């Protein structure tokens, strides 16, 4: 069973503060992704990675940084959090070993920036 975990599950931050969201996967997938989910917008890709040491900008990267120090871990960093970054964040992993391509999602982190 694919396993993607996220921490913390809930976070309250202050405007201007630094926030780090962490993601760990035990699937040995090369690709990892960070999305945010907002009502009326669906899932939007922030950053993604094709392997350890690599990060790529997604569709809405402004205000976010990403770090992939290892195959298993992928972090999303908000250096100066703003209220507009209040959202639910999902991490996912995926790889095209065989069959249909599937991304496995974590349970999400609910971030509130006050």
């Amino acid at each position, binding site marked *: 069973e694919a396993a*993607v975990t996220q921490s913390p599950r809930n976070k309250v931050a202050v405007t201007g503060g630094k926030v780090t969201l962490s993601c760990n996967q035990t699937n040995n997938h090369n690709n990892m992704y960070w999305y945010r989910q907002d009502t009326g917008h*669906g*899932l939007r*890709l922030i950053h*993604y990675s094709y392997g350890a040491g690599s990060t790529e900008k997604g569709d809405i990267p402004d205000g976010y940084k990403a770090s992939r120090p290892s195959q298993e871990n992928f972090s999303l960093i908000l250096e100066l959090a703003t209220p507009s970054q209040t959202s639910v964040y999902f991490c996912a992993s995926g790889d095209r070993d065989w069959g249909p391509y599937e991304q*496995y999602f974590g*349970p999400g982190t609910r971030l509130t920036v006050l």
Partner: protein
Amino acid sequence: QQQVRQSPQSLTVWEGGTTVLTCSYEDSTFNYFPWYQQFPGEGPALLISILSVSDKKEDGRFTTFFNKREKKLSLHIIDSQPGDSATYFCAAEAGANTGKLTFGHGTILRVHP
């Protein structure tokens, strides 16, 4: 610019009825179209997917149809059950084998017993 349009935004059906969700897209390089199902408080999970070389994929009560000429796809759920109540997202892979998915805004489905 939204690249994958999904409709309706929400839908209510009676138990045993048929649910139909639709999506349209513009980018002709999209060639892989998964549907994800999300229950409250959980992350999305792959439900069914189709490649652009096919026009139909069936998995139990769930069938997805693809029309390349019209750039449209749909998800049909027959004999809808209360347990199918969830948010459904269509998605498309941006370019061949990139692994990047562009998601629609989602459809909230409620199945009443």
